[in-house]
């Protein structure tokens, strides 16, 4: 098991997930459609999850993988709430673009 990590150094995993994380961030920054923003956030979380797994292998320790389950669960819960809010917004203003959410300012 460890030998994989010997062949591909841990750094690469880190870089990979950092890249994924950044993709997520940019998604959040540049997309205006709420759903896609959610998905970008999911990408961020999953990037982290990937890293968790990598680390847990690296450390030969299961906690990391357990943690991944936590974070998945949490992410699911979050998105559930998020979608609920989104629905009520859609009911009220008939759009899911976050650019329409500018009533509160100043």
């Amino acid at each position, binding site marked *: 098991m460890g030998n994989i990590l010997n062949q591909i150094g841990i750094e690469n995993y880190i870089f990979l997930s950092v890249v994924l994380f950044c993709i997520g*961030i940019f998604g*959040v*920054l540049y997309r*205006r459609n709420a759903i896609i923003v959610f998905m970008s956030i999911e990408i961020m979380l999953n990037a982290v999850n990937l890293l968790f797994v990598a680390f847990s292998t690296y450390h030969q320790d299961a906690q990391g993988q357990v943690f991944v389950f936590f974070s998945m669960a949490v992410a699911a819960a979050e998105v559930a709430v998020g979608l609920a809010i989104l629905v009520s917004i859609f009911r009220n203003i008939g759009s899911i673009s*976050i*650019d329409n*959410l*500018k*009533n*509160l*300012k*100043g």
Partner: protein
Amino acid sequence: MDTNLALILVLTPLLGFLVNVFFGKSLGKTVSGAIGTIAVAISFVVSLLLFNQITSTGKGIEVTLFDWIQISNLKINLGFLLDQLSVLWLLFVTGIGSLIHLYSISYMHDDENMHKFFAYLNLFVFFMITLVIGGNLLVLFIGWEGVGLCSYLLIGFWHKNQDYNDAAKKAFIMNRIGDLGLLIGMFIIGSMFSTLDYATLKTAIAGASNLNLPLLSLAALCLFIGACGKSAQIPLYTWLPDAMAGPTPVSALIHAATMVTAGIFMVTRLNFVFDLATDVQTVIAIIGAITSLVAATIGLVQNDIKKVLAYSTVSQLGLMFLALGFGAYEVAVFHVITHAFFKACLFLGSGSVIHGLHGEQDMRNMGGLRKAMPITFWTMLISSLAISGVPFFSGFFSKDEILLTAFHHSIPLYVVGSVASIMTAFYMFRLMFLTFFKEFRGTEEQKHHLHESGSLITIPLIILAILATFGGLISLPGNSWLNGYLAPLFTKVAGEEHHLGTTEYTLMGVAVLGGLLGILIAYIKYFKQDNVPESDENITGLSKVLYNKYYVDEVYDAVFVAPVNSLSKFFRDYIETGLSALVFGLGKIANEIAFQGKKLQTGSIGLYLFVFVLGLCAIVSYIFLAQ
């Protein structure tokens, strides 16, 4: 015993004041007047007793009541010093005071606030006595400012007229300028000798080795400034003529006989200081001479009977300072006394005239009053002769003494003084002729109200006239009782006795001739040719300048008062608003920033997240850089 005497002396006028203030109205005019007069009369009696005691024992009485102000290096107590000088002053202050009180009973009888008038007069006497008998400079200062206050109250006695109030205010403030000088003088003396008591001070100075003379002279100068304020010397004299706004008895008491002599009193009191500051003495002499001349010249052309007397007062005071400047204190004191007699008499006389003419003060509307009011005429005539230095009247001796001293020290000042006295003679008789001779120039109904004033007015006049005649006897040239009496006060031998030699006699002659000359000119100008001064608008040339008092008031106004006022406006309108704008400005800035900041909060999630990420990157990269 002495303490009680002193307290009675001081407190009876105060008592009179209190009674008149609180109950005067209900007591009625005559009673309140009587109270006022009696109060002063009692003080007069007490002063007589004290005088008696002093003359017998020959040394002063010191009375200490209690500590007053404690300052680290000098302790000032509330105490009195009754010695030759103060008792002498007391005598004529209270004596003339009681006469004038008597006079006022009838003079002020038509005024609804008569009780107030007497209250103020009593208060004045109280403060004057305090001034005179104060045991140290600070107690003197109480009286000093107190009499200033009283003159403020009495000048502005007819308070409905704002001009009178202005005059009163002017008097008070000008005095205060002097008072500041006095205070500074006290500070210097206090810090030098750490005492303000006359007695201790005298010994301290006598005993002091290597005195800081420049500093001492500075102190003397400051004190003299104080004297200038009180005794109306250049440059602080302009308040005195305006002070004539007050009722005539006030002018007689305060602005002729007593208060204005306080300056001379103070200088005499501190003779041991001034003797050391010789250059200050020269200044005093010069200022005195100039004042006497300037005032006399102005007096030449005045048409208001009281104004004439006012300027003559200023010029006489100038002569006294001339004497002081030469260290001839006893001479000055002598003239103070005689002057008190005849000037009081003159003022009261003029008061009686004004009373008779129902408030007319312009000599151009008088004339021919001789027959109508003989007593007034004769008394005033006597006093005029006295002031003009006609032989054997009191004024002759005192003024002559002064001129003698001047002659011995500096001829120029002697000349100035003599010229001044010639002018005095002139304008006094100008006054006499215009007022009492020829035909009456007033309106018809005035004319037929003309009458001699009541006995309460005439009696004081007569008494004063007598004093004005024989007052000179107290210091005959040759053997002077006064000099002997005052001798203990002075460090140096009391005034060099002029053994009457030829020079003296010639000088006397010159003085007499001068006086007669003045009278003669007046006689020719106003009796023979009987021309009456023109009405104000067509006065021209030099006489116009003189008539307008050399425009000194205007100058002062332009140089001091106006700038202060405009400065005040400037401060109020610009500096003040500017400062508060500065403070408000800070708040405004914050508000402005807030206003701009609100625009940043656009409400767009994208922006918020963007800033979030920026911050994140900034921090993380900062960490990396620091590594």
